[in-house]
């Protein structure tokens, strides 16, 4: 062992820091003593120099080794000792034990591998030397030394016995397996829809069959429990939960919190939804359901398969419907039989998109069903039917998506509003995005065209609002399908309108009220998009537009006023859920009420533009005669009144005025409710209160308006006027600056940060090297010191020895001398 080697061994060992002279004595000292000698004593006992081994282990190991050595020598020719028989160095007894394990039950004897007992019998000696012996004798014989023959006999017997046993076992297992198979087959037919393939497989070897069964079991879809029929309560609960979730989502958006990606699911898909566009509250029809005691799952599937061809079938469905309803008129007994037909027919009815009507009808009795699209009760049923037939006969069942706005117009021209809706619905169906690649784009365009069409319908005179009304569900459905395109289309409409208004404002300083189509667009916006969001790409601009119109458009006629009131209503609708503050709304309502004040002198409130305290148009709502109050009763104003009013005489005009006033008062009341939580409620409603209580003489108004007015005044004055002073939001107090130093335990001294990994590695290695180097030096020094000490000791010992010897010699010499002298003296 060289020095370095020894040293390194020392450093690896964690104890190198406290030097143990004992180690040195054992290693260094010995080496030192061996120095310059040609022969040396090496202890070759096992583990002598292995320091890691415990002494007990050493001893144990040595003992076994010794035994082995002895054994090797002794046992070469010894057979009848209690030593085991081996083959290929393996114990035969052991092998026999494993026999069963190796031989699986399917192993036939022919195919059997070379087994221990076989080899033993084949190679071991004569088969005729069998001697029957009882087991007991064997035991007895076991005591004495067995001869080879005996052993072999024993072996053969054993093996035979075992073979028999195995056979029995196998037969039993076979039986059990078969029984299990049989049982399984019985159960399997229960669990899986498809009956297992029967006899063919039996020709194949059993093993394969079994394997296949196992695999089948493994891979086959677990038989799923069929969906449970939902009770109405559960359905309602589910529905409520869904709505609650959507509501929570809406609230979150209202507060202006960030939208979590994917947090909202815009459309609720039923599990059975094929995503084929039937999103409109039809999903309840698609779920598994019992109908009149029959499970209509199979039919459901059929229905869905058929849906692609539904257009073709519809005609049939229609005719069957007619027949059926005829029958029903005569007799109701046949209902049972026609149930199935009914089923299909309803499915095809769906394609019409009459979902809203249908859902109502379904809850009603079936007789009403055939009256679906035209609820004109004045006509007799036959007439209605005849009309329907005639109308529907004209309509094709598929429509190409319109490529331009004019295409759409051509397509819809000359049809009744119901048919227009049907056409749009069918266009949407036959161009569903899942059917062809370009359909998505086509339908997105269709949405834009529909919006344009709605605008045109509203600008016609008279406006065809009922058609718009009919088209709303289609627009909604399209919007749900393509939110982005819908958003873009609506934005461009709003943007254009706002832009043109801005331009007029720049030139003239005021603008005309938005036309009816714009009012309709604003309403449609509210139907399609949530108005309560804190910020929404469509509804926020729409609300701004409303506010802009209410601030910048001067009221110069009763039409203007009606438009203004429509805008106010829209404004209230927009903020009804979020209860946001819309100052322009209050301003406009105050202005409107101001128009009804007769005596405009000494006002206790301020009228905000576009209204003026006095002027040409400031008496628009003042009644021309108090007579009209008595005959007045509240009626809904037509939306077309925003465009033109035919009010020839004063009484008509007064009626209109009173209606406007009542609308205005109602809106004020709603605002009171909406804004009752605002801290400045009293100041916001101060002008209204003054106006109603002091200036608008209630005596001249009809009863209902008087009541409304007093209700409002009461509501305003019942609000608390006191407020607690504003303070900043409570915040966590900022902790004082601490002056005691913060102690951070530095775990890695001198570790340089910010360098690259290689540099750090290099640094680390350098550091390690240095440490090692120092350690080595220290060890070497210690070694040399130790050696020096040893040498000194040696020298000292040697000197002492020499001294002692010299002394001895001198002593003996002295005694010799003394003796010699005494002898001399005696002689003398």
């Amino acid at each position: 062992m060289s020095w370095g080697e020894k040293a390194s061994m020392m450093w690896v060992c964690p104890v190198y820091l406290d030097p143990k002279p004992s180690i040195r004595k054992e290693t260094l000292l010995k080496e030192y003593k061996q120095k310059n000698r040609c022969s040396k004593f090496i202890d070759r006992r096992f583990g002598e120099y292995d320091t890691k081994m415990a002494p007990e282990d050493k001893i144990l190991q040595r003992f076994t080794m010794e035994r082995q050595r002895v054994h090797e020598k002794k046992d070469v020719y010894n057979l009848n000792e209690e030593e085991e028989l081996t083959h290929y160095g393996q114990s035969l007894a052991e092998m026999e034990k494993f026999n069963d394990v190796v031989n699986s039950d399917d192993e036939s004897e022919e195919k059997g591998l070379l087994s221990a007992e076989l080899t033993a019998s084949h190679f071991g000696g004569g088969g005729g030397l069998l001697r029957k012996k009882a087991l007991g004798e064997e035991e007895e014989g076991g005591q004495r030394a067995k001869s080879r023959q005996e052993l072999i006999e024993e072996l053969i017997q054993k093996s035979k016995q075992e073979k028999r046993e195995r056979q029995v076992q196998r037969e039993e297992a076979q039986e059990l397996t078969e029984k299990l198979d049989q049982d399984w087959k019985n159960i399997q037919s229960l669990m899986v829809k498809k009956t297992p393939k029967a006899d063919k497989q039996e020709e194949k070897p059993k093993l394969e069959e079994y394997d296949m069964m196992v695999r089948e079991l493994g891979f086959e879809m677990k038989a799923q429990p069929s969906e449970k029929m939902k009770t109405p309560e559960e359905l309602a609960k589910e529905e409520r939960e869904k709505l609650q979730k959507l509501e929570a989502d809406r609230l979150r958006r209202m507060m202006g919190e960030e939208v979590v990606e994917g947090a909202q699911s815009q459309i609720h898909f039923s599990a059975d939804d094929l995503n084929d566009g039937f999103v409109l509250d039809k999903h309840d029809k698609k779920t598994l359901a019992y109908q009149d005691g029959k499970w209509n799952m199979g039919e459901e599937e059929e229905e869905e398969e058929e849906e692609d061809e539904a257009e073709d079938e519809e005609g049939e469905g229609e005719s069957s419907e007619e027949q059926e309803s005829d029958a029903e008129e005569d007799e109701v007994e046949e209902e049972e039989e026609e149930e199935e037909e009914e089923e299909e027919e309803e499915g095809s009815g769906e394609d019409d998109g009459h979902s809203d009507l249908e859902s109502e009808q379904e809850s009603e009795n079936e007789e009403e069903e055939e009256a679906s699209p035209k609820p004109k009760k004045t006509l007799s049923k036959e007439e209605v039917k005849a009309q329907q037939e005639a109308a529907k006969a004209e309509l094709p069942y598929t429509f190409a998506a319109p490529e331009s706005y004019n295409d759409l117009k051509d397509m819809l021209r000359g049809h009744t509003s119901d048919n227009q809706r049907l056409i749009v619905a069918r266009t949407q169906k036959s161009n569903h995005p899942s059917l062809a690649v370009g359909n998505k784009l086509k339908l997105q365009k269709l949405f834009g065209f529909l919006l344009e069409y709605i605008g045109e319908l509203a600008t016609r005179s008279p406006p065809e609002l009922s058609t718009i009304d009919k088209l709303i569900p289609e627009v909604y459905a399209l919007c749900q399908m393509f939110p982005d395109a819908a958003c873009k289309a609506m934005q461009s409409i709003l943007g254009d309108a706002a832009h043109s208004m801005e331009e007029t404002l720049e030139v003239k300083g005021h603008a005309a009220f938005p036309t009816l189509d714009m009012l309709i667009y604003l309403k449609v916006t509210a139907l399609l998009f949530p108005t309560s969001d804190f910020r929404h790409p469509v509804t926020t601009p729409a609300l701004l537009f409303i506010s802009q119109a209410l601030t910048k458009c001067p009221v110069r006629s009763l039409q203007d006023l009606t438009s203004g009131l429509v805008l106010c209503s829209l404004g209230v609708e927009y903020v009804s859920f979020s209860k946001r503050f819309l100052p322009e709304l209050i301003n406009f309502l105050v202005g409107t009420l101001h128009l009804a004040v007769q005596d405009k002198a000494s006002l206790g409130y301020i009228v905000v533009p576009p209204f003026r305290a006095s002027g040409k148009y400031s008496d628009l709502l003042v009644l021309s005669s108090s007579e009209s109050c008595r005959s007045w009763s509240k009626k809904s104003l037509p939306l077309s009144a925003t465009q033109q009013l035919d009010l020839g005489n004063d009484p008509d005009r007064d009626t209109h005025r009173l209606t406007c006033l009542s609308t205005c008062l109602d809106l004020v009341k709603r605002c009171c409710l909406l804004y009752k939580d605002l801290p400045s409620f009293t100041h916001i409603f101060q002008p209204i209160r003054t106006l109603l209580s002091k200036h608008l003489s209630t005596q001249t108004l009809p009863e209902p308006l008087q009541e409304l007015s007093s209700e409002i005044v009461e509501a305003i004055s019942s609000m608390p006027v006191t407020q607690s002073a504003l303070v900043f939001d409570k915040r966590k107090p900022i902790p004082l600056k601490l002056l005691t130093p913060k102690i951070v335990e530095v775990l890695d001294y001198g570790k340089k940060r910010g360098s690259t990994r290689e540099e750090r590695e290099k640094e680390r290695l350098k550091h390690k090297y240095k440490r090692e180097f120092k350690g080595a030096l220290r060890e070497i020094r210690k070694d040399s010191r130790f050696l020096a000490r040893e040498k000194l000791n040696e020298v000292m010992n040697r000197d002492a020895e020499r001294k002692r010897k010299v002394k001895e010699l001198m002593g003996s010499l002295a005694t010799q001398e003394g003796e010699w002298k005494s002898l001399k003296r005696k002689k003398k």
Partner: protein
Amino acid sequence: MAPAKKRNVSSVKTAEKSAKKAKVDLSKTVERILESRKHANDVFDILESLQAEQEKEVISAVAACSELFCALLERKELFLGKLPGEEDALSGGYSAEDKYRIFMRHRYTSCVEILLEHLSHEHAMCCLMKFAAGEGLHPLEDLDWSEHYTFPERYTLSFVALVDNLLSKATDNSLLISRFQEFLEMEDVRYYVMSSIRDNAVVPVYQNNVFTLMSSISMPNQESELTNFMVKQEAKHEDWKAAKLHEHKRVFERMWLGFLKYKLPNSMYKKVLVILHDSILPYMSKPTLMIDFLTAAYEIGGAISLLALNGLFVLIHQHNLDYPDFYKKLYNLLEPSVFHVKYRARFFHLANVFLSSSHLPVYLVAAFAKRLARLALTAPPTALLIVLPFIYNLIRRHPSCRVLIHKPSAEDEPFEDPYLTDEEDPAQCRALESSLWEIKSLQKHYHPDVAKAALLINTPLSEQEDDISETLEVTTYELMEKDLKQPEIKSVPLEFETATRLLKGGGDVLGQHFCLA
């Protein structure tokens, strides 16, 4: 008069001529006349068509006249000096050459007269101005410059006639005046025009014309800029009034003061006030003379007061005007309408300047803040985006106003708003005892930006003042575009309540009051 006689003779003939032919003929005639003196009498034809009925013919005649007489002026073929009467010339001992010149000179005079009659045509006006320029270069009268170091008296007179014509009391001449503007670029023309706007009347059309003319005058800033003269004068240039800036200023000032002396309609008031601070006040020799006018305007109230602020600001700031109760008046200017008028941006810009002083008393600043907050309850979103930062800036500048948004001492005891809305004196309105609950209410405003701005009062305000100049001019449409032009929208939230009918949804407000048909 000879032209009149001729006219009668040839009136039938000229009426028959088509306009185009006339033009060709006229230009040929001009060529002929200029070629040889034989055809001198043809000048009557031109003067004839100058008085024709058809406008086209007149226009071509005007062009012919200007060509002819400018050429004659250049050739000096018009008689110089004092013009003898036509009869005298024939009888007197003049040479043939002189006779021709006298003849032409007479035609020239009559032409100018006719043109003055036709002044409503811009061509006629241009033609006259050309003549004036030509005469300036080649004076017709042998003038002694020491006596008349100006336009010949005749031209000042014709200017007066011209200006009188422009400032008609019956028709709106704004188009003509805008054409005339190019001549106003010339220093001497401008000078004489300015001094000829003298008499005045309270007729709206007239005032309108006067204002259009006066507002189109753009004054030079320095004497050295006075270079563009129509008539250059070598001698006595230094003494020429039209060449001196202070003279210009004096005339300018006199003109405006003369105009503003009379009662003006409100719209005119506004127009004047809009341009007052940057195109009138700087060019007056004594701007302080405007004090009366501005004070009167400031007292009127409403939008006019707002506009007067600008002029007052210039006077206070640059001319050391001391205006008592200025802030009180400013405070009383704050009405709901300030958020709706066109001059909103200008007003808030100035109010910001006036209230930026840190030497204002706290009560005053608090009163302004509270008043603005109260008014904010009726303001449109664009105004709110100005007002809210404005109020915050006030509070930042005057930290003792912080009690308006943070009053921990009175946190738990509710009290009625002590602020007196109708009090006119900001010192008495008890604004400091109040809190800005209005801004708290605006936290529920429908527009997200406003709501966010209002939310700032929940926490202590940052040190940095908001820059309101950027938001001053924002229009509603621009505000809208912020939402409309968002580059990409992750996913548009949709209404989940299924729409079935047009009038359904949203609380059925619309459906309750209106029906489809």
